C-alpha cells in the first residue's frame, strides 16, 4: 500500500478555498517500497519489473491510460482499446529488446562516413539510387503499421508499446539514411511503381495486429534483414556497407520481437495459427511480387554483379542465392514462431532448391 502515515496537519482547502485531496499521500492502493536495484548497466526495464509492477495481466481490468500498478479510480474513462489480451501484443523478450533498442540507437547523420563517398560509374550510381528509392518506400511501412495499432493496445502492455516506439524511430532513421544516400552522391530518387505497393497495402490492411505483425516482422522485415546482411555484396563502397550493417542490427531486433510475439500468441491460443497462416498465404504472394518487381530486382542484380556487364552471368545468379537465403531464414523463423510453413508455403522451394534439412532447428 502507498504509505501508512496519516499526515494529520495537512490543510483541507487551498489558499483560494478549493477542497484538497491528499489520497495519494495517505495511502494509495498500490505497492510501495519495491525499490528495484540497478544492474551493472543501470536501472533497466527488467530491473523494475518487480512485485506487482512486473505482473502483466492476461486481461487488464480497465482500459484507461493509467500506468500499470497505479491505484486506478474505477471511473477512469475507457480509451476504446481493442487489443486487451496479453496474447494480442506480448513477447517474452520485449523488455530486453526495448533496452537493447535504446542502447543501440545510432545516427544517420553522424555515424555514416558520408565524406568518404566516391564517384561511381553511372550504372552503379543509378542502381544504388534505385535500391535506396525502393528501400525508403518500404521501410516506412514498419513505422506506419505499429503507429496504426499502438493506440489500440491496452496501456497495461506498456513495454510492448515502448518497444514499438523504438521500432518507429528505427524506421525513420532507415528512411533517412536511404534517402540521404540516394541524394548524396550526385544521383537522386528514381522509380516508384504500383507493384511494391501491393505488399505494403496487404500489411497495412491486415485485419488483426497479430496478422499484421506476421506479415511485417516475420515476412517483410525478415526478408529485408537478410537483404541488409547481403549489403556486404550489394554495397558498391564502404559508406553503403556501413549503412546496411547499422540498419541490419535494428531490423534483427524487430524480427526478434515479431517471431517471439507470434510464438507467444500461438502458444496461448493455438487457433491464432490459422489466421496467421491465412495472412502469410496472401503475404508471400505479394512479397514475391515485390521481390521480382522490375526496379528492385534489376537494381539488386546490377549491384551484386558490380556493373551492367556482368548482370546476366553473375548478378542474377547471386540474386537467386540471396533469395534462397531469405526464404530459408523466413521458413526457419516461421518454425520458431510456431507457424511452420514448409508444407504450406507457395514460395517456389523446388526452384530455389530448399528442403527441410536447410531449415535451422528443423532438419535431421
Amino acid at each position: 500500500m502507498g504509505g501508512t502515515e496519516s499526515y494529520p496537519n495537512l490543510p483541507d482547502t487551498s489558499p483560494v478555498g478549493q477542497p484538497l485531496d491528499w489520497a495519494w499521500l495517505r495511502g494509495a492502493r498500490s505497492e510501495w517500497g519495491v525499490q528495484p536495484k540497478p544492474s551493472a548497466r543501470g536501472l533497466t526495464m527488467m530491473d523494475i519489473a518487480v512485485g506487482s509492477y512486473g505482473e502483466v495481466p492476461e486481461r487488464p481490468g480497465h482500459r484507461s491510460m493509467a500506468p500499470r500498478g497505479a491505484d486506478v479510480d474505477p471511473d477512469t474513462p475507457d480509451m476504446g482499446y481493442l487489443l486487451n489480451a496479453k496474447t494480442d501484443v506480448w513477447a517474452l523478450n520485449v523488455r530486453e529488446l526495448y533496452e537493447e533498442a535504446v542502447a543501440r540507437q545510432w545516427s544517420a547523420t553522424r555515424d555514416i562516413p558520408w565524406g568518404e563517398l566516391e564517384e561511381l560509374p553511372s550504372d552503379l550510381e543509378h542502381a544504388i539510387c534505385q535500391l535506396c528509392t525502393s528501400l525508403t518506400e518500404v521501410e516506412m511501412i514498419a513505422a506506419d503499421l505499429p503507429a496504426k495499432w499502438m493506440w489500440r493496445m491496452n496501456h497495461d502492455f506498456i513495454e510492448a508499446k515502448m518497444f514499438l516506439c523504438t521500432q518507429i524511430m528505427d524506421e525513420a532513421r532507415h528512411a533517412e539514411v536511404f534517402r540521404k544516400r540516394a541524394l548524396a552522391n550526385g544521383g537522386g530518387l528514381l522509380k516508384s511503381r504500383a507493384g511494391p505497393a501491393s505488399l505494403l497495402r496487404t500489411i497495412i490492411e491486415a485485419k488483426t495486429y497479430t496478422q499484421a505483425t506476421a506479415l511485417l516482422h516475420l515476412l517483410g522485415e525478415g526478408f529485408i534483414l537478410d537483404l541488409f546482411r547481403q549489403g556486404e555484396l550489394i554495397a558498391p563502397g564502404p559508406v553503403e556497407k556501413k549503412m546496411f550493417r547499422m540498419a541490419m542490427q535494428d531490423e534483427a531486433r524487430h524480427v526478434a520481437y515479431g517471431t517471439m510475439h507470434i510464438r507467444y500468441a500461438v502458444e496461448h491460443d493455438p487457433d491464432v495459427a490459422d489466421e496467421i497462416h491465412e495472412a502469410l498465404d496472401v503475404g508471400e504472394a505479394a512479397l514475391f511480387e515485390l521481390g521480382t518487381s522490375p526496379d528492385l530486382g534489376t537494381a539488386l542484380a546490377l549491384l551484386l554483379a558490380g556493373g551492367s556487364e556482368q548482370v546476366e552471368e553473375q548478378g542474377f545468379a547471386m540474386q537467386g542465392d540471396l533469395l534462397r537465403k531469405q526464404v530459408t531464414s523466413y521458413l526457419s523463423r516461421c518454425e520458431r514462431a510456431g507457424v511452420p510453413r514448409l508444407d504450406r508455403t507457395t514460395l517456389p522451394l523446388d526452384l530455389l532448391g530448399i528442403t527441410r534439412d536447410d531449415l535451422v532447428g528443423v532438419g535431421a
Partner: protein
Amino acid sequence: MDSVAFLEGLAAQMNAHPDRYEVLGDCDLVLGVVVQRPDGQAFRARITFEGIACLDVCEAEAGDEALADCWLEGPLDAWSAMVDDIVEHGRATGRHTLNSLTLMGESIRLRGQDVMGIDKFSRFNQSLQEFFDGAAARSVRAVG
C-alpha cells in the same frame, strides 16, 4: 586465434576500452568459436558478452558450441587471414569482416541451433566486429 589466451586478450581489450562499445550499445549473447586446425583437431571456445563487457572466455568440448546462441566455424587459415587483415589495417576491411566472411559460408560459417540465436549475430554485429578488431592491439598480437 586458436587459443584461449588469444581470445582472453581480445576480452581484455574490450574491457579496457568500454568507450568503444558504449557507442555501439549493449551486447548480450554467448558466441561460440570453432577453429579447425590442419591436423583435423578443432579448438572450441565460448565467449560470453553482457552489456559492454566480455564476461568470460572458456574452452569448450566438442559439441558444446551448440550451447552458445550461435557460433562461427572455419579453418585456421581463414581465421588467420581475418586476423592478419585486422593487424594490417587496424580493423577488418573488405571481405574480411565477420559479416562478409560468414555471408558466403565458404570460409567461416555462421551456425546455430536456433534461428533466434543466429539472428543475434545480426543484432550485435558491430559489437562483435569491434571485439575481433581488438586483434590489432599489440598485446593481443603478441599472444596470437
